[in-house]
């Protein structure tokens, strides 16, 4: 067994990778929110149906998934090489590459770049990674105002809220709530604003247009970075991203190191996989690709910040590194029965849902997000949907094992570890096993009308909502022995 100690993880106290409560507690509160439950059920079932339709029409979908998986696996195996190639190419084409070890370093870098450009305001787009590191807070501390320009991010920002979905950060809001937020927070919003989608987008458009035209610095994330050409890519639906990427004089892109892909041709695979998996579209409306700086066209200064923040630690885990293959399509969220009921906030991280449950604990260290690997019934719907075939259920089990093993190394006993050890000891011997079965039959006294309504802790968690079966008077093996003797 290899250990993963020593690799730097995402530092605490900055950014949004850790919740304030364990998942089960946060989930309980979310489950009590009827409006949230309805919004989520509607939104996820709509996206699920759309995705299923456009995936179903491709005869080579499984081959595409396999191609996506293979490209990602090969990239991770040579990540160092591809990143250096990317740096060379971006530099050769007039961009500047910065390496950020973690959130603190990245925030300092970006804040410095914005200040150097003499800007007090920035426009932002497609930047979940900057939310991971808490960039807006860092900019605010330096007196710089960041304007989110993706519609859903804008709703979240104006609502003083947190995103709850990778692709649809305001999925927990419905139209009426969005209208209220706009009326309250948008300077000069028309008091007669209705909650019709066209009206809401028109209001956002007016609000954003002024900011796009005034901004001198744009900050973005990236979906892909092609090592062989130094090209960055963003896919989106609204066109706001494109304005953010093309109008300002200075563009700063903050990208996790795992987003690099080796070849231009690899885009062929991902540009098919991503829109179908995320929005359920055959093709996304806007794909913006840019390479360094083009004199007289678009931003004249381009900075690429390559962020680690725990990714190398994930890479060091040969099983866990699969989580770095993620292309953030959010298909796994939309099919997840747990996510559909709790929403994203319960996960406490900018990366919610199944992928968040395997990514966040690796970025922060498992102990700091220890409840997340258990936030799944292991139903496997995520694995089935994932366009790059990340085996999320196996990763969840692997991270649970890492958690248990790390605790054992630090000699932290728990009632559970004692129970599990005892159960394994019992199960390892047919004699002990049969004795335990007989002891369990004492539980028959708890039964009434063939059911048990209340059990002591920890099994009280079972009987809080479910009856338990009364142990039968005779186990199967006793029946067999009585009927057929001890011969097999």
């Amino acid at each position, binding site marked *: *067994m290899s250990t993963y100690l020593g690799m730097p993880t995402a530092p605490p106290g900055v950014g949004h990778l850790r919740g304030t409560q364990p*998942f*089960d507690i946060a*989930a309980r509160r979310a*489950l009590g929110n009827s409006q949230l439950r309805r919004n989520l059920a509607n939104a996820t079932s709509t996206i699920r149906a759309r995705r299923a339709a456009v995936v179903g029409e491709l005869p080579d979908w499984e081959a595409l998934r396999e191609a996506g998986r293979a490209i990602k696996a090969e990239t991770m195996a040579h990540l160092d090489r591809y990143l250096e190639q990317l740096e060379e190419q971006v530099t050769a084409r007039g961009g500047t590459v910065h390496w950020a070890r973690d959130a603190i370093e990245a925030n300092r870098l970006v804040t410095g770049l914005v200040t150097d450009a003499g800007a007090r305001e920035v426009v932002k787009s497609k930047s979940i990674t900057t939310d991971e590191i808490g960039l807006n807070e860092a900019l605010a501390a330096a007196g710089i105002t960041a304007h989110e320009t993706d519609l859903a991010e804008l709703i979240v920002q104006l609502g003083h809220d947190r995103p709850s979905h990778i692709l649809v950060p305001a999925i927990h809001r419905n139209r009426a709530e969005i209208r209220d937020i706009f009326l309250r927070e948008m300077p000069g919003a028309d008091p007669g604003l209705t909650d019709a989608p066209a009206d809401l987008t028109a209001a956002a458009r007016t609000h954003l247009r002024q900011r796009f035209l005034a901004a001198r610095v744009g900050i973005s994330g990236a979906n892909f970075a092609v090592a062989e050409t130094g090209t960055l890519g963003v896919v989106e639906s609204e066109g706001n991203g494109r304005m953010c990427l093309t109008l300002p004089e200075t563009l700063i892109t903050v990208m996790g190191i795992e987003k690099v892909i080796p070849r231009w041709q690899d885009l062929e695979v991902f540009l098919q996989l991503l829109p179908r998996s995320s929005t359920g579209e055959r093709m996304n409306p806007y794909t913006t690709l840019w390479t360094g700086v083009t004199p007289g066209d678009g931003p004249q200064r381009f900075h690429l910040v390559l962020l680690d923040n725990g990714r190398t630690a994930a890479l060091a885990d040969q099983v866990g590194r699969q989580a770095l293959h993620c292309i953030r399509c959010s298909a796994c969220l939309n099919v997840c*029965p*747990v996510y559909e*009921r*709790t929403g994203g906030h319960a996960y406490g991280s900018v990366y919610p849902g199944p992928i968040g449950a395997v990514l966040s604990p690796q970025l922060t260290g498992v102990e700091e997000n220890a409840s997340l*690997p*258990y936030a799944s*019934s*292991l*139903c*496997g*719907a995520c694995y*089935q949907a994932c366009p790059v075939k990340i085996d999320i259920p196996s990763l969840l*089990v692997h*991270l*649970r*094992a*890492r*958690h*248990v*093993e790390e605790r054992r190394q630090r000699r932290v006993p728990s009632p*559970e570890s004692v129970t*599990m*050890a005892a*159960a*394994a000891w019992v*199960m*390892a*011997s*047919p004699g002990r*096993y049969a004795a335990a*079965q007989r002891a*369990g039959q004492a539980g028959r006294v708890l039964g009434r009308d063939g*059911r048990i*309504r209340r059990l002591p802790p*920890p*099994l009280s*968690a*079972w009987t*809080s*909502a*479910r*009856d*338990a*079966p009364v*142990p*039968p008077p005779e*186990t*199967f*093996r006793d*029946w*067999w*022995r009585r009927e*057929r003797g*001890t011969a*097999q």
Partner: protein
Amino acid sequence: MRIALFVTCLADTLFPGVGKATTALLERLGHDVTFPQAQTCCGQMHVNTGYLQQALPLVRRYVEVFEDCEVIVAPSGSCTGSVRHQHAMVARRYGDEALARRAEAVAARTYELSELLTDVLGVEDVGAYYPHRVTYHPTCHSLRLLGVGDRPLRLLRRVAGLDLAVLPDAETCCGFGGTFAVKNPDVSTAMLADKMRSVLATGAEVCTAGDSSCLMHIGGGLSRLRAGPRTVHLAEILGSTRDQP
């Protein structure tokens, strides 16, 4: 054919009727059923809760107990899934490549009940009689880990007297998930509530599945609410005849 029964610790201890029905069914079809008595548990609960090291002796026990058997059947999608997809992984994690190879060989001969019947024994009409309205819940591990597809439905459609009702949103998890049900009881219950609503919408008296564990969860919820429908394992339906209901 000589078929070794891996009854699973849950059926052995709490649902012996599932083991008896599997035995009766296979014997009715003319096969020899054996029950290696040194068997205990596949270790799935340990693996899925993160206690892989504790599962290692259970993997070794399973391999040793069933290694000499030609064909092994388990009336459980998730236990079969554990044998097939986890045993070798556990052995490798602790550096026992020889055990991993042996585990793979035994796993290749271990079948879930509906797989055994349709793929190995080549039957769909097992001569069963079950005069009830029944709905079938495809458990996640039989559906996605094993890929049993419509095998259970093909078997159920041939049961005399059985009125098969289609379960809405059938492929959504019921919320059991092993220790998930006690570690995240609120989410588990929320998922259960939706599954029960689907079951009730069918008007069925019986909800069936290939896993006693998920049925214990769904059945426990239905029983708590006095909702009406009961849960019955697929083996018990296929094991029923006019003479021995």
